[in-house]
């Protein structure tokens, strides 16, 4: 009998500890599949963030570094500058990348640092209990904006892809929405392109993955996917922002 589907080699045997329906598991798997397909497992060094995906080093079978909150692009810069023939990626949530690590991501992008960034946007700080994130939508409730995000008090959500696309440094920026089989295929294609870009020496690539947090959103997974499709896609339209 022919085996047509299995666990990617780039994933360890450790089971994901993510909540039921959480898209972190899908994103992890897509990255692992891409690393397998590109045959770069032995060359890849991943940098994981602080947040729900802080334990990513237990799931990825390649070399992994746990960065402090928001600093993954700086850590990746250090690794890539001294090991330019290796493949270096960061995996960061919205609090990590767009709030506390805003300076690091902007400057890594501006330098055209030859790294791959997978940015998971689920509009919340999932691990710490669902606080307001820089990407929390207007009127969306969180534990630190219980009446909903109000622009007067809390300011406006940050559109990372659009913001970074104003810079000359990035070679590739795309936002994807893996809430359907077609969306997952598209997300994988984007992640693969972001890794291929780095291997080709083209510089900074970022893929924003619109994601969910059923637990903190107080929704079942199906409803959380609908919420991404209806609300998040309106505020954060999927698409290619830079590809050069």
């Amino acid at each position, binding site marked *: 009998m022919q085996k047509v589907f299995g666990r990617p080699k780039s994933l360890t045997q450790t089971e994901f500890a993510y909540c039921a329906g959480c898209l972190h598991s899908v994103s992890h798997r897509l990255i692992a599949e891409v690393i397998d397909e590109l045959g770069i497992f*032995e060359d890849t060094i991943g940098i994981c963030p602080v947040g729900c995906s802080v*334990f990513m080093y237990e799931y990825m079978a390649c*070399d*992994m570094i746990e960065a402090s909150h928001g*600093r993954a692009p*700086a*850590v990746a810069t*250090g690794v890539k500058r001294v090991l330019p023939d*290796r493949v270096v990626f960061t995996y960061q949530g919205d609090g990590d990348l767009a709030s506390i690590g805003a300076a690091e991501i902007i400057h890594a992008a501006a330098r055209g640092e030859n790294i791959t960034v997978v940015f998971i946007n689920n509009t919340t700080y999932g691990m710490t209990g669902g606080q307001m994130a820089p990407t929390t939508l207007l009127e969306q409730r969180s534990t630190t904006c219980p009446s909903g995000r109000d622009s007067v008090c809390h300011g406006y959500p940050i559109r990372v892809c659009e913001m970074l696309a104003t810079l000359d440094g990035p070679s590739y920026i795309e936002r994807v929405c893996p809430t359907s089989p077609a969306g997952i295929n598209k997300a994988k294609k984007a992640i693969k392109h972001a890794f291929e870009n780095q291997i080709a020496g083209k510089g900074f690539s970022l893929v924003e993955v619109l994601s969910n947090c059923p637990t903190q959103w107080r929704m079942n997974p199906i409803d959380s996917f609908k919420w991404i499709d209806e609300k998040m896609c309106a505020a954060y339209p999927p698409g290619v922002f830079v590809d050069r």
Partner: protein
Amino acid sequence: MAVKKLLKGNVALCHGAIAARCDAFFGYPITPQNEVPEYMSSLMPDNGRVFLQAESEVAAINMVYGVASAGKRAMTSSSSPGISLKQEGLSYIAACELPCVVVNVQRGGPGLGNTLPGQADYFQTVKGGGHGDYRLITLAPWSVQECYDFLPLAFDLADKYRNPAAILMDAIVGQMIEPIDVRNDFEIVEYPKAWATNGARGRPHNIINSLYIDPEIMEGINNTLQAKYEQMRASEVRFAEYRTDDAEIVLVAYGSPARICRTVVDMAREDGLAVGLLRPISLFPFPSVRIKELAESGRRFMVVEMSAGQMVEDVQLAVSGASEVRFYGRTGGYVPNPTDVLNQVRQWHGLPPLVTHYSTSATVAKEA
């Protein structure tokens, strides 16, 4: 073969880094250490190494974290406020047992302070500085020659113990120009770095991490770190003494105040006062055992710092009441004047102060 060169302390650090085979340097502008990133910006690429001006001190120390994780020699430099920003990164680096070198050309503080010399970052550097129980190997140069020589030493100790090493100096040492021997005969030991995250080529994956949810594992990590620091205390204490053999009062100072105190020792000897100098070279590990010995043999101590009194606490701990410890310090960027220090010694002997032609009203003197 050593070549004689006339160099500024900050520039000597750069040449020392090249001699130490430092692979990458990350810096950010701040006075009085700007010569370091400026010289490194050409010196490093000229020698096939990496230089990058980071977007912040925070980013710079995290780039160092990345390079050290990759198993290469990494360095950053800054001055007091910038070093404060690096503390989070240093805590992670110490927790992950990564080797690197961090230079602090101390200025006046607290806050934005000023760009004049200071030594008020002693607590921050020697006691840890960031969160958690950790220590930095801390070396304190008092000359341009030592700025050069201590870079290979710091990298060696960092690699040997898998621990960050700090060069704690002050703006005088960083800015002064002296002739030095630019040696190139350092023995650079290549320590095996099987733990490095440089790609899992034919081996199980490596992880650089400081997150341990299980208290048993976390305490085990802390015990490992503490055992390492104990080993440093046993093997890596460095200090120098000047005319302490027959001294009744031993001045204790590091960095440029130690040079001033050496002058004070000679002045005091001319006065017939038996004064000597102990200069801690490693601030962590601290020469506590030697100070204790001197205290138990009846020596009294005068600690001189460009701070309101920080290293004096380590001297007091070492002396543990066996003898008397006094302190004389200047802050704000003022440098202790030899006559002022001598007057403190004279006062201790019940002698009248020598008259100086400048105001000494701003001195910080206390009896400990």
